[in-house]
């Protein structure tokens, strides 16, 4: 049984998600804004928090900032927005994945399970953003360990962007699902820790393109 807190300012959406989530998920709390979210998450200590990117009081990123180091809960960002700055921002803020609100119930249930197990959840779109952000440039990497993706990680991301599920990726690349998860988690770590110029500047520049 996964214990989950829903953070979203639309009551209707929370009700809908609750109805769609599978048997293996128990919703232990709900919140509609940043203050409420911080209180509920601290009070219930769930396994996973479904966090809306756009929230009154500073957005999902503010919830992540305030709870940094104070909770063992893992965050999965959920949004209607496709804007790169939102997606990258919330993942760099500490979310372990990002899915759009159009995701189906079973898919969301699976994503929650994966986040609860400590893995990362990348939607095709997020994979696309990450490939864009880590695109090869002429600028020498400051920290190659963090600032560049390996060839294998790139392959995995490309397959995610092409719409492959982890199982399909494993089959395609002749590796185990566990290895796919390891690659994705490694990409997530780089995404969060890298100081690559593109990552900090990228979101802003994206708007100007």
């Amino acid at each position, binding site marked *: 049984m996964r214990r989950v807190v829903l953070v979203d300012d639309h009551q209707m959406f929370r009700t809908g998600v609750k109805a769609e989530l599978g048997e293996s998920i128990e919703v232990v709390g709900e919140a509609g804004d940043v203050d409420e979210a911080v209180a509920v998450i601290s009070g219930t200590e769930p396994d996973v928090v479904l966090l809306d990117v756009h929230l009154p009081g500073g957005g999902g990123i503010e919830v992540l900032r305030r709870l940094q180091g104070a909770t063992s809960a893992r965050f999965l960002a959920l949004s209607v927005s*496709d*804007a790169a700055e939102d997606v990258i921002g919330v993942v760099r803020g500490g979310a372990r994945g990002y899915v759009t609100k159009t995701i189906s119930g079973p898919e969301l249930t699976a994503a929650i399970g994966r986040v609860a197990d400590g893995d990362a959840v990348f939607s095709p779109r997020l*994979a696309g953003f990450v490939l864009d952000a880590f*695109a090869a440039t002429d600028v020498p990497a400051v920290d190659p360990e963090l600032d560049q993706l390996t060839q294998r990680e790139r392959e995995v991301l*490309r397959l995610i962007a092409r*719409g*492959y599920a982890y199982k399909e990726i494993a089959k395609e690349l002749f590796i185990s699902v566990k290895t796919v998860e390891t690659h994705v988690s490694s990409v997530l770590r780089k995404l969060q820790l890298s100081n690559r110029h593109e990552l900090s500047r990228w979101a802003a520049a994206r708007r100007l393109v």
Partner: protein
Amino acid sequence: MTEAAQPDTRLTRRADGRLFAGVARGLADHLGLDLLIVRLAFVLLTVAGGMGVAAYAAFWVLVPQREEPAGRRDWLQLAAYGALIAGLSSVTWSRGVAQVALWPLLVCGIGCAILWQQADRDQRQRWVRTTTMPLRRMWLRSLVGMALVLAGIGGFVFQQLDAGQASGHEVRQILVATVVILAGVAMIATPWVLRLWQDLDAERRERIRSQERAELAAHVHDSVLHTLTLIQRNAADPREVQRLARSQERELRSWLYAPRADPDQTLAAAVQKLAGEVEDDHGVPIEVVCVGDCRLDDRLAAMLQAAREAMVNAAKYAGAESVSVFAEVEGEEVAIFVRDRGKGFDLDAIPPDRMGVRGSIIGRMERNGGKATVRTAPGDGTEVRFEMKRS
């Protein structure tokens, strides 16, 4: 002049909005002219030999007053016109060098009158407040300004006393006096002008804001509300409802978030547009992810057409819930993947006369120096991979 549209075409003096007896306002309404022009005409006629006064008096006596509640008289404006007449008269009376100094003042005066005329009552009150308040607060600056004006006028008066023997020396003195007057006026007027400027600025910003609001409202009305109506009318057809909702979502998203890229110019925008069209036509959601971008050329356009064909096939025949499209530009390589998890098919079993896959997908790519690979098997979905080097 909304009054000009009234059916009553008889010339009347206006009680509402009059300055003196309502003659000018009545005439302006009657002739469809701007009030300011009529008033200035009277002013000029008055100055040029007093004709204006006579004409005004004649109208006053002969023209009946309109039956309407009398509005409050704008005494400040009346004073402005009075000052204008006085100033112009003094110009015509004290000919010669005095005109040199008075003309700039006159131009200023007319300018102010026009501004005053165009402002509404609130603005006028605000202007008066901002003029008198700094006068009280910044008394030192005002005092200096006043002193300069007085000194300048004193110079003039002195000059007028022994007019008649104008020499180069005196002309210089008059110029100095003029400069002193203008400096004084500038000093007094600076805060007022500044305030006026800010006022205009604020007004411009407010106008931009309201334009944006109007644009947003128009957009929501044309697109979202329209779609919601269609959804209600098609409520019995879940597939159509989903198609409408998806199409609207895509449109709204691109309006809100997308960088304004031209689908005729760049690859990523073109792929998005294509996918949107296919989605609309066939009612199957198409998820598009783009990495990198480049300019379109003829060969890439052909590649897009081939990709479109693959999307249509996937939407029409695969029976999949959705189609994934991934377009990537990396260095010189452009790649597009169209994938579905539908029924798939046996590539070798397609009869040679069926042109869909061979002709418009594989053949088209080869003719343009690219490559298309179809990977499929019955029950295993389909993926078409398009590759091309940028020219």
